[in-house]
């Protein structure tokens, strides 16, 4: 059974403007999916639909075989969710917030809660409203993982965290993977976190999935080809190659992303496409993100 299954999920906030447009996503047990996309691409919408906080206008959702619309409580018991914004009542103290969750979840693990409280150096008596954004995020994370849910949905879990806190978050996620085989779907703009944690990459853009692939295949299967602008008069011809994803013109160069290894892409560029002076190079995740969904594409 898949841990999460979205089929043809469509959601609009404004009539005719689909934030998610017919999106399919299947997540197997133990997978860690890094969800990438620009702000407004639909990452939060996708996570909220998976959590059952938002209903899709089209398509179906299944979480551990359950329908979040039909069995919302059963779904919430088995999912740990950290939202982009603070959603815990701000008048509670840290201890009270943790206590509330302990009562809500039958499988609450006190030992893990203690371990994380001390790792995060939590200020138990402080009211949530007096915490920094990062500290509040750590409380949310603790509350999301201590019932050891089989599925974690994390919306920008590292947003607002300083580098030391980000590392603690990462170690906590890795601990959950090692101890419980947790499945994780997380959105992030921190490409190094994605590279360290994710086994699979899903990039959404314009409401649709652009890339859905094993992280290492993405790292080694895509590259950037740069051609001096005067040797590449026709961007459309490059883009029409079946392995070319995007073409951008920047300054005096044409930059094209190919779904090929660098050596192969260079052979295609100089051979099939007849582009002289082309160079090809591997792409790290951050550059790939910018090349694929940054501005100035043709």
């Amino acid at each position, binding site marked *: 059974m898949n841990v999460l299954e979205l089929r043809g999920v469509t959601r609009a906030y404004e009539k005719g403007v689909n934030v998610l447009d017919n999106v399919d996503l299947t997540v197997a047990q*133990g997978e*860690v999916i890094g969800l990438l996309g620009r702000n407004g691409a639909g990452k939060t919408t996708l996570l909220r639909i998976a959590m059952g906080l938002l209903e899709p206008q089209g398509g179906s959702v299944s979480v551990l075989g359950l329908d979040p619309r039909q069995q919302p409580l059963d779904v919430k018991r088995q999912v740990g969710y950290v939202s982009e914004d603070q959603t815990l009542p701000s008048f509670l103290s840290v201890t009270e917030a943790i206590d509330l969750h302990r009562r809500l979840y039958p499988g609450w693990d006190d030992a893990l809660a203690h371990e994380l409280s001390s790792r995060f150096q939590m200020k138990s008596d402080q009211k949530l409203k007096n915490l920094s954004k990062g500290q509040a995020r750590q409380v949310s994370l603790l509350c999301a993982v201590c019932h050891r849910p089989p599925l974690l949905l994390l919306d920008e879990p590292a947003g607002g965290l300083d580098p030391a806190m980000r*590392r603690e978050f*990462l*170690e906590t996620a*890795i*601990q959950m*993977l*090692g101890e419980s085989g947790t499945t994780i779907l997380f959105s992030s703009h921190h*490409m*190094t976190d994605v*590279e*360290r*944690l*994710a*086994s699979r990459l899903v990039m959404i853009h314009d409401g649709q999935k652009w890339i859905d692939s094993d*992280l*290492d295949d993405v*790292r*080694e299967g895509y590259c950037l080809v740069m051609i001096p602008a005067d040797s590449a008069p026709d961007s459309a011809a490059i883009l029409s190659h079946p392995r070319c994803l995007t073409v951008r013109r920047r300054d005096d160069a044409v930059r094209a992303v190919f779904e090929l290894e660098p050596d192969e892409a260079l052979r295609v560029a100089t051979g099939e496409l007849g582009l002289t002076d082309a160079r090809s190079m*591997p792409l*790290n995740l951050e550059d790939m993100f910018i090349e694929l969904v940054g501005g100035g594409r043709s």
Partner: protein
Amino acid sequence: MVEHGTRHRVERATRKDRNMLFMVDPHSGVPIFRQIMEQVKLAIAAGKLAPGDDLPSVRSLAVPLGVNPMTISKAYNLLEREGILTRRPGRPLMVADLPEAQLGAHRLGELENLLRPAARLARRLDIETDDAVALLRRLLTETEES
């Protein structure tokens, strides 16, 4: 057994130090599983890991390195497939019983990997072969003296 070259100067990593043989750099442009594979090979080539030595467990490496355990498993599995590591039921993975000739080839292979980009750069900069070889010779002599 005859020790030759500089090998006797290399200290084998103790069991406790073996976790410290590994470091990952997510910025480097090389996928993390490849970085780990390379570091195991380098540690073997440098004599820090010898045939029969246990590798650190996937779980003991994952948290300190800050890396998904599956990435480390993947690196170990590929090294096993290459015959560099051996799996025994219920025991940690260990360095395979590689013949001395193969270890020598590994050491040269590691150096070749580092020198290949240098050779490409030398060609791009139009440096004469004799000058490049002389430079390497000088660096080797300097390292020996220090």
